[in-house]
């Protein structure tokens, strides 16, 4: 993939550490990454741009990741959403998948697991495009 056409990723998590670690790792793997820890800012951003992939936490202080991913999928159905959460339950997982979430990772996860999920999402995006 050439530089102009990098896969774009938005990451939303209210814990800075997650953003600090994911940004460089995803960038090293060749992605264009924007990170947000306030969901209001992330809402604004996705209204202005359709990202290829959105990675979001589910349970954040003062906002609901589920609402965010619902919004994202409604605006841009082609965007693949990966959920990362520390409160993984069968119910939240089921609900996420019903909303069209691509993958669901329970925190803590290995960096490699997330990169794998992102790669798979990327493959699907490319398959659909072709």
């Amino acid at each position: 993939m050439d530089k102009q056409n990098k896969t774009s990723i938005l990451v939303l998590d209210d814990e800075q550490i997650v953003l600090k670690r994911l940004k460089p790792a995803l960038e090293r793997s060749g992605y264009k990454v924007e990170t947000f820890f306030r969901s209001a800012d992330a809402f604004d951003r996705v209204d202005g741009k359709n990202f290829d992939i959105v990675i979001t936490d589910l349970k954040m202080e003062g906002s609901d990741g589920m609402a965010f991913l619902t919004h994202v999928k409604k605006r841009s159905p082609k965007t693949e959403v990966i959920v990362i959460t520390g409160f993984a339950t069968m119910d939240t997982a089921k609900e996420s998948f019903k909303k069209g979430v691509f993958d669901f990772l329970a925190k803590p996860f290995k960096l490699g697991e997330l990169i794998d999920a992102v790669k798979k999402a990327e493959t699907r995006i490319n398959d659909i495009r072709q």
Partner: protein
Amino acid sequence: MDNSNKVKNIVNKIIGKIPFFSTRLQDKHDREIAFTTIFARFQDILELNNQILDLMATISNKLSGDYIFDRNYIESSSHLMGDLIAKLISNFNILTHGKYRQLNNVFRKINRDIEKELSGKLVIPETDYVIPYRSLTRDFSEVAGGKNSNVAELKNQLGLTVPHGFAITTRAFKSFLEYNNLSERVNIILHAWRGGDKTTEKASEEIRELIDKGTIPPDVQKAFNWGLDNLKTYSDDKKLGLAVRSSALGEDSEHSFAGQYDSFLNVFPENFGNHYKAVLASTYSASAMEYRLQKNFSEQEVAMPVACQMLINARASGVIYTLDPVSPERRVLLITGTWGLGAPLVSGKIYGDSFVVLRKPGHSILELDIVRKREALVPDEKEGCVFKEVEREAQTRATLSENQVKFLTETALSIERYFKKPQDIEWSLDQNNNFYILQARQLNIASKLSSIVNDISSVVQKYPVIFSKRGAIVQKGIAIGKVFVVNSEEDLEKFPNEGAILVTHQFSPILSRVVKKAHGILTDIGSPTGHMASIAREFSVPSIVNTKVATNLLTNGEEITIDAEDNVIYKGRIEELSLYEFSHDNVGEYYEYRLLRRILKRISPLNLVDPKANNFNPRGCETFHDIARFIHEKAVKTLREVKFYNQRNSDIPARELQSTIPLDLMMIDIGGGLKENAGKRKVTENDISCLPMVEFLKGVNAPGAWDNEPMSVDFGSFMSSMTRTFSTGASSPKAIGQNLAVISEEYANISLRLGYHFSMIVAYISEKINNNYAYFRFNGGVTDPVRRGRRAKFIGRILEKKGFYVDIRKDLMVARIKKISKESLKRKLYLIGKMVSFTRQLDVKMVDDDHINLFMREFEKMELKNTGEQD
């Protein structure tokens, strides 16, 4: 006496009642708690202990950098850990009837500290004000600071020569603040500074003045005096000169506050207090405050530990970088040196000689630059240091000889291996040509390195893989070196001093002494939670256990690279891999990592190592790990010592074992130890389904062990003479008597009196390695104590060879082994059975010490004959 009466009698005699239940709980007989209940608690304890160790490993793993975790994880896993420990303690209190209730307080205190950490407060542990280097371990790094604990580790773990000295802990800092009522005042100033109402310079000046005017609290001063008096004993007649410097938190590890704080050379003891205050004050230098602000350090994390070292009156001093920070790809070390003390070289005031040395073994000197050294900094006769002119002839002479360069190189690389990061090391050479390492800290060149090894996968592809994904990594890292296979204790003596990769079938305790020389360790069998794993971690030696194939596939002298990150063993030296390891992001930068690390300090260090040590009691427990360890040890002990209660109203009858060997053993089955169709009064070996019991009896019955079968001529006659010595009466069932086993499917607790000695065997064998253990206690005898002692020694030596931890005190021998696989533990039980048989009357003939070796050889011969019994 009819049989059932006999059974009842024997059982009554030995079983008795569980003491505390009979004295406290019981009113008469009805409220007795059955052994099955006790045993169920015991099993819960084992299970909880397992979960705790697992969780501890899982949490520690998060620090490896592979994981993304957040604060929520830290909180929830800390709470889960607390819950498990609480459950463990409550089970244990039931088992021991509250004998160790103090554990509750210890637990609450640790838990409170963890909660405090979680709430963002820096918890300063209640340590001493002063800790001498000889007693300083890594676990104190938080209170003693990076510089102190690194130097102490070099001394205590790597055996390097460092200046005598002591750490002044953060507790002294805290006490100083409290004594002078400074915390509040400092916070007000800091608050104004962060709010923009004060410039950094102004805030710094005000705080420094407050500290300067403070008084050292009397008990802190007392501790200083004690530390200083200790140092005086090392200084020959001359006046003691000190180096007093900051050992600030974070310095020397993930953060380099190098140069941010003041340090003072050649301080006299009587002025130590003022210099201590001056170092404290430098915590609040304007540059340090700015630096912390930039790096997102909370001011709450600030607590200054200080280093006090004996000043080395140096002939020469200098610095070593284990990699060239500008061009790490050259794979060289940079060594600089100058005459006198190193301070002007370190601060960059002067240039010194420089030596560029290859990292590759052989360590040839690539480049050499000898400069004119006109002046040297030396300790003044009065306090402080002065520059002195260097003698003309010495000005252009090299500060180090080729051999000295080589020595420093090897030392520096061993430090790098130990700390797993490129190092920035300060050295001095004293007037008698002894080298000292003054400090070692991480060289921060990660960003440089990642650019030179960005495609590690294509580099390693060039090297053949010997094996991969075998066994379990117990200590991560990269190890490069020559294979050294250890099969016997003699091999151990030949283990190269310059280090090698230790390859062995199974780790045995005697290998501990070469671990710190090993660059890496590979074993065929072993458990990741075993003893060896903790030693490997202690010395930070990259290790993989349970590979099954290591001794088969590797040959002595072969050069290999262990990738104990990815679990691959390569043929050849792949230096790039260790550079790559160095380049990993420094996740320690993040607050969450520091928090988790601090919390783990309350959880995972193990202080209660030796059950015989004075601190092996609830009061000695400083961490959750200590509590778990203490409980595990005492729970096993409690169960071992339980006197089984009168089974009269119980549905568990004691049954007699009918065997060719006259053991006269009564058995109480508490669950699954006997087959369903076993007789109600008498059972045979075929009825037993208790795994440890089955193996033990097989061993007892092993050919040649009970002297029923012919042995080698010498030994046979030996034994027959012994049999004659002991009348048949002594070995008849009646005289032996009083033998009892409590068994379940996986557990056996066997008390035996054979001849005139007493053995106790307790074992638990299951699929879960962590639960497995065997305990064998052996004492008594009929001869004089010396001969009995010989027999104990004989048994002990054999068991030690087979991997047991053995403790011999006079004629008492206690052997323990735990956390080994089901199959290996079965073989150990078999061995114990055989030993019990073989040795029951040996002490009679143990007339001199040579017999210990003679019998050992005989026993080994017998082992060889019984093929398939080797382990």
